């Protein structure tokens, strides 16, 4: 059953362009992330990591195969329903934080709620709670420019999980941070997963990927390995054995 999965990509192809110039960004990719699970995706540039995140977040559509968020197939939603699902279910964390510079930490975190029709008072209250959970209650009224990179990323994580969101998509969330601050961010993501949120993390940093429950290796648009599954060395000598 797919209903227990926070995110399922099932046999997904994504082809950019057509004919001779067609580029296969993803080829029959299957990845599933359960509630409470932190999954990291690693792979060289061009292996399809960004396409994967865009599809999982409903920012792009699969050429073939299914993408399901909390059991809802994104391909069957009209643009309006898709946008609503994105706002309700999916939170994003980016490498460069993407906070709105003219808004305070609390206002940044409250923004997705207000866009979703929550009135500003209850939105602020929930934002303050979310900031408290990332240890930033004291900095709620500070502007991003007056915060360190690590603090800004914690605000971004609070923004990603505020409300009832069940899926966090993180694109190199530690890329702009030093190693120790990056570790704090990973600790925080883990803590959110322990509360039942599912997270899919794309990273180049093996040290941070290792905080995940599973690490999936992407190559040429397909998952070649998964540290959660045991794969034997049988295939190793397939040519030499002949």
């Amino acid at each position, binding site marked *: 059953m797919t209903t227990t999965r926070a995110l399922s990509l099932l046999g997904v192809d994504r082809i950019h362009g057509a004919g001779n110039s067609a580029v296969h960004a993803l080829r029959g990719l299957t990845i599933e992330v359960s509630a409470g699970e932190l999954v990291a995706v690693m792979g*060289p540039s061009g292996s399809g990591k960004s396409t994967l995140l865009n599809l999982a977040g409903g920012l792009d559509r699969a050429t073939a195969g299914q993408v399901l968020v909390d059991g809802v197939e994104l391909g069957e939603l009209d643009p309006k329903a898709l946008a609503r699902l994105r706002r309700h279910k999916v939170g994003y964390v980016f490498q460069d934080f993407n906070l709105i510079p003219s808004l305070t930490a609390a206002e940044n975190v409250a923004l997705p709620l207000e866009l979703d029709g929550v009135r500003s008072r209850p939105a602020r209250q929930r934002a303050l709670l979310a900031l408290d959970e990332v240890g930033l209650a004291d900095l709620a009224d500070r502007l991003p420019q007056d915060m360190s990179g690590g603090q800004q990323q914690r605000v971004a994580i609070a923004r990603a999980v505020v409300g009832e969101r069940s899926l966090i998509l993180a694109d190199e969330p530690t890329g702009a941070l030093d190693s120790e601050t990056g570790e704090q961010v990973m*600790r925080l993501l*883990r803590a959110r997963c322990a509360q039942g949120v599912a997270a899919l993390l794309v990273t180049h940093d*093996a*040290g941070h*990927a*290792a*905080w*995940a429950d599973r*690490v999936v*290796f992407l190559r040429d648009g397909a998952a*070649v*390995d998964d*540290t959660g599954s045991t*794969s034997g*060395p049988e*295939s*190793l*000598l*397939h*040519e*030499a054995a*002949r």
Partner: protein
Amino acid sequence: MSIPHGLLALLDQRPMYGYQLRAEFERATGATWPLNIGQVYTTLTRLERDGQVAGQATDQEGRQRYEITDAGRETLRAWFTKPVTLGDRPRDELAIKLALAALSPGLDVQSVVQHQRVATMQRLQELTRLKRDAPTPSAEDLAWTLVLDNLRYMAEAELRWLDHCEGTLARARPATAPPTGHLDSDATSDLTADPTTQETLR
């Protein structure tokens, strides 16, 4: 790993019994270098013979504590100040394995790299789990924390190196090219021209 120096460093804190030394050694290094009690007593006997430690008088239960001598302290200081050189470390089997794999006709080297990458990442995940579960190291666990971080950084470095190997291999011999069974590189011809080498690799 130098067991004699490890024991001297522990005895430099205070005199200890053999079983204490073993416990302290394991606490400092985690399960990384398990030490059996036989090794501890053999090493102590040798250190005593060489004047590096001295056995104290046995207590009523027949147990004996050992203390470090001035000569032992001298040895220890010299050890701490001398940098570890390449010759002190065991050779890295992985580097040798990959180097030989690159020469081996018909072997999918990318796949060798990938299998190692998964295994190393799994190890890194386990080490990270250990670190995760002990967020703030106490003073007592400081030594083990340092060892644990060392192991994590080594695993990270190995993964970076594997990425690099993969890139180098992809440029040198594209994965899609059928294995030729021949050599196309002059640099490798000496080794692989030797039939016994090829035999072993197969």
